[in-house]
């Protein structure tokens, strides 16, 4: 859809299960009927005290699926362990993304 304000293309994003249209140009956000309420509901859940811990004998929740990666990728296919995402590694890697290297 087109942004009602500046007429640039709008893109759909999923935020905590709520579909949000955001303008690629002015960054304005468009909410469908009920979406503001859904966001408000999520916000109130966030500020409530955490629910009681689940009963002990329960399987670990499924980890979010890592995106696909090639076979020659870093060990563990670019998700956990042995990666360079944290702290100064991240800063360093990010700095390199700014250059044609």
């Amino acid at each position, binding site marked *: 859809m087109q942004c009602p304000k500046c007429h*640039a*293309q709008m*893109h*759909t994003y999923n935020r905590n299960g709520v579909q949000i249209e955001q303008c*690629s*140009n*002015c960054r304005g956000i468009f909410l469908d009927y009920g979406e503001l309420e859904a966001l408000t509901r999520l916000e109130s859940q966030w500020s409530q005290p955490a629910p009681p811990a689940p009963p002990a004998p329960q399987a670990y929740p499924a980890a979010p699926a*890592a*995106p*696909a*990666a*090639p*076979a*020659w*990728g*870093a*060990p563990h296919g*670019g*998700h956990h362990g*042995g*990666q*360079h*995402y944290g702290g100064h*590694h*991240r*800063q*360093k*890697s*990010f*700095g*390199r*993304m*700014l*250059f*044609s*290297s």
Partner: protein
Amino acid sequence: MTATPLLAGLTARARAQAHTGGTPGPTPCSCGAATLADRADATVVRHADTVAKAHAPDTALDDLTLRLTAATRLPEVLLPPLGPTPTPLHGRLVTCWPYGTPVDPERPDAAPWEEAATLLALLHRTTPVPPALPPMRGPAKAALAVARLRATAPHHPATPAVLGAWRTLPAWARAEAPMPDTTTLCHGDLHLGQLVRHPAPHGPWRLIDVDDLGVGVPAWDLARPAAWYACGLLPPDEWTRFLDAYRAAAGPAVPPDGDPWPALDVPARALTVQSAARATAKALAEDRPLDEVEQALVDACARMGSVPPQLARTSTT
């Protein structure tokens, strides 16, 4: 530092362009001025809201003019130049551009991954492509990096792995054959340094640097982030944001859903090889060991030697 004749001339060119139509500024004038880059392949200076760029010494006038025309015609995607044709200066071609605010290297969390992906999708969907554009120069630049590695670092311990990975690539990705796609408009050298906000500092993001722009395999433009993700250097969520935004904008380089790697594998290998080759040559020139980021690139090259490339469904080579 003593300014070279080129740098001095370029600075004067930017100042003159910045003050076009007004009274000539005093010399030196009070406007903000800076050298943004001074490399063998490009010198870039800023004066107030104008940027002047001296292109690489071997740049062809006709090709650069066609690329400027493309940028002029696609102002929603590419930053448009201030003039339609390059002008000569000390044996180099010079172009002038409006200044835009670049990506902040200190703020990885603010990196415009979605905007970069969306701009690429729009670029790749451009029809008709501005006429007579030369091929996108991505494979040629990868080949150049490998040739330099061979020439300058033949005995470096990392070199065999990098050259071995290079040999896994099809001829088109090594610039030894035409690309399998000759109709899609591509940027050719996408990285986060190729995005600016114009008008500065809060305008929309636009792609800059048309030196490698042309027709070719659009997955090449996704390949640097893809390579960094594969090498364990770009977090999965940032890669996912980039890829999802590209797909949401109907970019044609990858299928709309499912595994994107049959399309990305060859270009991502090529960009990994290019980055590893440049890093190795640079480390040798500076007489230092590879750092951990550079080593991750070389390690990925070493693994490529034992895994044949995936073939894109549309690829014929």
